[in-house]
Every structure is written in structure tokens, then in C-alpha cells.
């Protein structure tokens, strides 16, 4: 029973820690990479996100520089564009940003898997795309190199020989690469390794041209060519598919927008709670603009926290339910096995209340022992994995499609521990009531005759 309780508590604490970790990471990723803590807009821009609804950046910059609690801010232009390459097209939200300012509010410059974040002096304007957008625009190629082939020799030596004919060849599409791979590999090896080989061989066409077509404030469509200088990847595939970054001045020039005006100012604060207070202050100062904190910009993110707690509790309740059955079974067996012992105790003069208390005390003691073991075990488990993370990259595609990282860093608070421990002990006590009641009903005379 000690083991059952310890495992139950470990399961409950770990489930809650995983969910906490995921939710906190999702909120942190959203704030850092996607929405920042605070955004300021022209209120009319929020209605239809029309390109002419800008506001003067200078009018807010002075206030932001003197407001405590702000870590950084970045003025942005935001247009909706149709992106075209020689092979595909896709809708994008294009942010015009100043790289140095953007670095102070956004984690995207640190999420590059290739190239650089709008730095460098190029004749053709630069664009940074998400990995998913680059794939959709077919700005990828597949090339198997000797070094990639050698990596697979560690897991499957005969694989190297079979894929040798593909080394050095360059494919513009995944399907043509896969077709050739299928032709060379044994079916079993193909089924097992083809996806990971394809993922390893992927390379992006840096400096590839992308034509963006968007509306100018005058209501006309304008096209401009950009070249891909960087590819980023976040844990949110949907974000990677739609957000692109270009240089502020390039976009302002191309879209004929006053370079002193912005569509959006993104602000990063010291903490999530600070942000709400800073937003209130800014809102009072700039009444003609719409100042929104992260929980207003993305209410679903704010809901994650509450939802995470709720989901955590559901898991804990399910685990406790299973635990309760385990305890009932164990204690019932214990009572039945010691039927004659209880009969003897009642015969020599132990009253029923004392028998009941004895079984309950036994259950509480076992539950507490299991609880301590479970807490110790889960604390060690969580401490280790809070540092290294738990890698669910086997299911990375699924996780990232819904905006969650495939590596989770479990996290748990003291109050979670207290709550779960109390619930486990309460479960232990409640689950013992039935076996204890059973012992109360025994007739000492009959119990003494039990063989």
C-alpha cells in the first residue's frame, strides 16, 4: 500500500508538474515570441487592421522610456501580404521591425535555425521567415551529404550503403526525395527511417527571392521583392507559418508609410503581473491609443493558466480514484487476513471504536509513509527534469501544431504539493472507511473459528 500511495502521489505531482510546465512555457513563449506583455495600437487599426491606421511612435517613446517596469519596447509596422516564390504562394503577416529594438522585446531573433535576423547591408531588402512558412513557400531543398549518411550508420550500419546513391543529389521537394529514398531502401528501413532522414537532409534556400504584395495606405496594391536571410523556428507551428519579419525602413518605404509612424508598439515588462499595472498607467497617459496587456491581447493564453490548473486537478482526481480502489483492496485484504486477530482482540476486550480507530490509524500511517516517499521521489524527479526537460520530440509535430514545446520542464509549487498531499491522505482515510466498517461488523465468536 505504501508503494501504491507513493506511486499515486508521484503520478499526481508529476502530472500536475508537467501540465504546469507546459502551461507556463506556453505563456512564456507566447509573451516572448508572439505578443509581448503590452501592445499599443491606434484603436481604429484594431477594427480592421487597415494599413493607414498608424500613430506617431515619438508620441509614446518618451513615456515608455520613463515608465518603470519596462524592459524594452519596439515600434512595428504590420501589413498583411501575399508572399510568392517561383514555386508557391502563401498569406503572411509581415512585421516591419528595427532589429535592435525587436531584440529587446522578442525572442524570435534567438530562434533562428539558419541565417541572421535582418542584420547586414544588402541591396535587396531582407525577410526572415518561420520554418513552416519557408516550407509552404517551397524555399527548401533536400540534400543528403556524407556526414548525414554517417550519422545514420550508428543506428543502422546497412542503411549507409543503401542510401549512398542519393548522396550529393539535391531535391526541390520532399516527395521527390522520398520517392528516390523508397527506391533505394528496404521497405522496413524506409518505414522506420525515411522521415528522420528527410528531416536531417532539409536545407533552406537562403537568399531565395520572395515577392510580397500588400496594400498601401493609398489603397493600392504594391509588390516588393525580399530575399530570405533567416529562418526561425518556435514551438508554435501556426505562428511560424504566418509571421514574417522585414526591416522597418524597407517596409515603410515599400508601403509608403510615414517612417515616424507605427502600427504597433510591443513592450516587454519585468513580469506578467507588472505588465498589467504598466498597461493601466500607459492607458491613462495615452487615452487616444489602445493599450492592451497580454491577457487582453490573447485571453486564451490567460485562460491556459486556469485551464492548466483545472486539467491538473482532473488528472489528480483520476489518479486518486485509482489509488482509492488500491487502498480499499489492500485494506480489505488486510482486514480479511487478520479476521481472527480482530476476533481475538474483540473477544479479550477491545471495543469496536478502538478496532475501527486502529484500522484507520494504520491506513493513515501507511498513507503518510507512502506520501513522504512519493513526495521525495517526485521532488527528485521534478528537480532533475526541471533542469534537463522531458523530451517528447517523438510527438513534436503534434505538440507544436497546437503551440506547445515538445520539451517540457516540469514545475510545481509548494501549494500544489500541499494540496496533493492533503488529497492523498484524505483519499487514504476515506478509502479505509469501508474495510474498517467491515471489521466492525465481525462477530468475535465467528471470527475466532476462521481458519
Amino acid at each position: 500500500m505504501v508503494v501504491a500511495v507513493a506511486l499515486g502521489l508521484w503520478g499526481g505531482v508529476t502530472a500536475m508538474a508537467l501540465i504546469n510546465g507546459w502551461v507556463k512555457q506556453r505563456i512564456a513563449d507566447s509573451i516572448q515570441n508572439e505578443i509581448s506583455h503590452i501592445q499599443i495600437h491606434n484603436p481604429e487599426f484594431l477594427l480592421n487592421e487597415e494599413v493607414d491606421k498608424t500613430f506617431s511612435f515619438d508620441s509614446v517613446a518618451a513615456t515608455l522610456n520613463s515608465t518603470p517596469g519596462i524592459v524594452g519596447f519596439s515600434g512595428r509596422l504590420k501589413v498583411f501580404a501575399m508572399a510568392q516564390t517561383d514555386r508557391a504562394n502563401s498569406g503572411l503577416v509581415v512585421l516591419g521591425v528595427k532589429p535592435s529594438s525587436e531584440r529587446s522585446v522578442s525572442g524570435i531573433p534567438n530562434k533562428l535555425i539558419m541565417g541572421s535576423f535582418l542584420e547586414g547591408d544588402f541591396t535587396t531588402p531582407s525577410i526572415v521567415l518561420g520554418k513552416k512558412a519557408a516550407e509552404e513557400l517551397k524555399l527548401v531543398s533536400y540534400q543528403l551529404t556524407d556526414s548525414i549518411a554517417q550519422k545514420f550508420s550508428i543506428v543502422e550500419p546497412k542503411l549507409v550503403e543503401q542510401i549512398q546513391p542519393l548522396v550529393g543529389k539535391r531535391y526541390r521537394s520532399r516527395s521527390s526525395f522520398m520517392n528516390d529514398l523508397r527506391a533505394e531502401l528496404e521497405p522496413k528501413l524506409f518505414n522506420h527511417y525515411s522521415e528522420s532522414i528527410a528531416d536531417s537532409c532539409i536545407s533552406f534556400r537562403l537568399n531565395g527571392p520572395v515577392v510580397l504584395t500588400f496594400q498601401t495606405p493609398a489603397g493600392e496594391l504594391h509588390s516588393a521583392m525580399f530575399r530570405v536571410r533567416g529562418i526561425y523556428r518556435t514551438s508554435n507551428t501556426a505562428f511560424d507559418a504566418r509571421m514574417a519579419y522585414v526591416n522597418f525602413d524597407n517596409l515603410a518605404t515599400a508601403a509608403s508609410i510615414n517612417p515616424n509612424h507605427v502600427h504597433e508598439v510591443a513592450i516587454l515588462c519585468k513580469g506578467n503581473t507588472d505588465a498589467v499595472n504598466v498597461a493601466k498607467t500607459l492607458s491613462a497617459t495615452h487615452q487616444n491609443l489602445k493599450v492592451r496587456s497580454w491577457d487582453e491581447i490573447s485571453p486564451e493564453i490567460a485562460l491556459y493558466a486556469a485551464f492548466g490548473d483545472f486539467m491538473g486537478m482532473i488528472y489528480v482526481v483520476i489518479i486518486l480514484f485509482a489509488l482509492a480502489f488500491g487502498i480499499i483492496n489492500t485494506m480489505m485484504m488486510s482486514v480479511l487476513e487478520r479476521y481472527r486477530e480482530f476476533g481475538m482482540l474483540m473477544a479479550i476486550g477491545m471495543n469496536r471504536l478502538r478496532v475501527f480507530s486502529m484500522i484507520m490509524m494504520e491506513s493513515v500511517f501507511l498513507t503518510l509513509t507512502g506520501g513522504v516517499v512519493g513526495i521525495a521521489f517526485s521532488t527528485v524527479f521534478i528537480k532533475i527534469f526541471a533542469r534537463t526537460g522531458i523530451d517528447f520530440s517523438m510527438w513534436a509535430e503534434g505538440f507544436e501544431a497546437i503551440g506547445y514545446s515538445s520539451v517540457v520542464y516540469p514545475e510545481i509549487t509548494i501549494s500544489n504539493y500541499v494540496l496533493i498531499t492533503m488529497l492523498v491522505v484524505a483519499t487514504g482515510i476515506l478509502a479505509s472507511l469501508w474495510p474498517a466498517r467491515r471489521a466492525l461488523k465481525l462477530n468475535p465468536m465467528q471470527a475466532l473459528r476462521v481458519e
Partner: protein
Amino acid sequence: MAIIEVVNVDKIYNDSEVKVTALSNINLKVEKGEFTAIVGPSGSGKTTLLNLIGGLDSPTNGKIRVGDVWLNELKGSKLIDFRLRNIGFVFQSYNLIPVLTAGENVELIMQLQGVPAKLRKQVSADMLGKVGLADRFASRPAKLSGGQQQRVAVARALASKPQFILADEPTANLDGKSAENLLQIMEHLNRTEGVTFIFSTHDQRVVNRARRVILLEDGKVKSDILQ
């Protein structure tokens, strides 16, 4: 005054469709210091009579007095408390608690009586000494022979300072030597300390040592002989 008085006791079991008369019109008196054996064939009502005298069961008709208390006047926890303070039990299969040592098993009944820990330990050691197990105070039942376990059970019964000890087939699970040894101890306690013993038994050795033998047949007292 006799310490036990059984007056017109019948015990009829109605559990099944057929009524079973386990005891019929039993009248007995047991004086303090007796060494009495209740004998009879299986099903004659020996254990039933012992259970009634011990307050573990109640008669269908009649009444039983222990000391100056009529058992039918006690109910629930009062009866349990009365058993705790007045009646010692020795069972056929010892019924020691396996996780407790011999000393702790003896102490258990005093713990239920609320005896302070220090005194409990002292009395427990004394009682184990009386049954010849002073050196086995810290042994668990699994480390003791059947005879030794039954002697611990006798020490446990003695520790509660009861008015009498009821022993249901105490030698049934013991080999000849152990049974003889146990009987010697009980007889010694009876002679030197005046402990009243009432046995139900099939064992001829117990019958031979008993000073009073009550023979039950078909739930009735067939004979009641002082030896």
C-alpha cells in the same frame, strides 16, 4: 458465593431452517479456585457454554452471573469492558499477534485496560516468568514453538488479572510434551495463586488433572464429578 452461576440456560441457534439446540437447561456453579474441565463429544455444546460464560454470546433463555454481575444486564461496550477486566481467554490456536513480541502480546491486554507503560512492562515480564518464558520476552510468535505460544497466551490471560480464565481446547494443537508442560504450569498457577481455570477439552490429560469434570452430551449436563 460462586464466581460463576449459570441458571436455566438454553441456547438455540435459529440461523438455518432447522433449529439447533446447542444447550438445554444448564445449571452450574463454579467456585473461585476451581480447576474445571468441561468435556464431551464434538457438538455437545462445550464451546457454546464457554462462549456464554465468557460473554461472547448470549443465552436464548436463562441467565449467567459472573462475580456479582448478571451478564444479560450488560450490553455493547459495557459487556466488552467487563470481559476485558474480569475474564481471561486462552484459545485453541493461541491467537497471538504475529508482529508483536511475546512481551508486547502480554502487554496488549493491559494497554487496553489503561495500565501505565512502565507497570505493563513489569507485569508482562512477571507473567512470562510465571509461564517459564522470562527469556523469550523479545521473541516474536514465529520464533516460538506451539507450546511456548500457548504459554504466552496464558500469560496474556493472566496479565489482565481476571476472575477466571476460560481455555477452549488449549492443548488441542500441542504435542504431548508441550501439552504436559502447559498443564503443569496452569495447575501450578491454580494451586499457588488460586487462579480459576475452566477448560473445554477432549484431551484425557486435561481431564486427568482437572479436579472437577463436567460432562456434556447433546447440550445437557450428563455428569458433574469432583475428582
